[in-house]
């Protein structure tokens, strides 16, 4: 959270991070927010459908299902591609529902024909190249259930030179 005291009319962001661990099926979390407004406390709520087999989801399968864009050497790694396969018998339209601000840009196919695979591309912004983070992107399909899929995005930035420098500094 950026601010803990808000003037009248002011606002702040509250980032809720959920570690899916070994959860299975539907998981609901309701973090509680205590303020000087007094009781009852207010809540935000996140819902997810944690899957053990992300390679067998429906109506699409995303591969890789986690985007790891980590960089462990000097060679800049700023882009990752992923495939979305439509395993249903209807064409599907995709909508981007949520992604973090300012870290990367995302190219998503607008439509995936039945039985076909389309490619998405995530490219880091120049300012994000030196960063490490764990975020996620959420997409929604226009099937009957309006199915949503969230793809974790992880970047660890570590170079041999920096590691050595840190070690020698102690």
């Amino acid at each position, binding site marked *: 959270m950026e601010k803990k005291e*808000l003037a009248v*009319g002011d606002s702040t962001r509250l980032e809720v991070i959920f570690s899916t661990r070994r959860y299975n099926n539907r998981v609901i979390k309701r973090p509680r927010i205590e303020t000087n*407004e007094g009781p009852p406390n207010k809540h935000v709520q*996140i819902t997810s459908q944690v*899957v053990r087999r*992300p390679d067998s989801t429906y109506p699409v399968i995303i591969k890789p299902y*986690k985007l790891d864009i980590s960089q462990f050497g000097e060679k800049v790694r700023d882009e990752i591609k992923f495939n979305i396969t439509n395993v249903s018998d209807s064409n599907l339209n995709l909508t981007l529902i949520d992604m973090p601000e300012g870290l990367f840009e995302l190219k998503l196919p607008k439509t995936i024909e039945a039985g076909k695979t389309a490619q998405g591309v995530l490219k880091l912004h120049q300012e994000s190249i030196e960063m490490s983070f764990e975020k996620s992107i959420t997409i929604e399909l226009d099937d009957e259930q309006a199915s949503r899929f969230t793809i974790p995005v992880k970047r660890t930035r570590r170079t041999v030179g920096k590691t050595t420098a840190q070690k020698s500094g102690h």
Partner: protein
Amino acid sequence: MKKTILTLGLVLGLIMLIVPVYGAPRLTIPEAEFNFGYVPQNAKISHVFWLKSTGDDSLRILSVKPG
């Protein structure tokens, strides 16, 4: 009768003066729910909610506890 109306008017006037001074903070969360849909195990995912101060006094966020 006139006295009663006058007294009531004065009391109401006083209340109207006092209320803004002792304004109440208020937290509003425009979108308080988010559905991630399908997510794989052993991953970290995140979503940003916006918290707004919509009362007539400043809002202090004392704690956020996982639920």
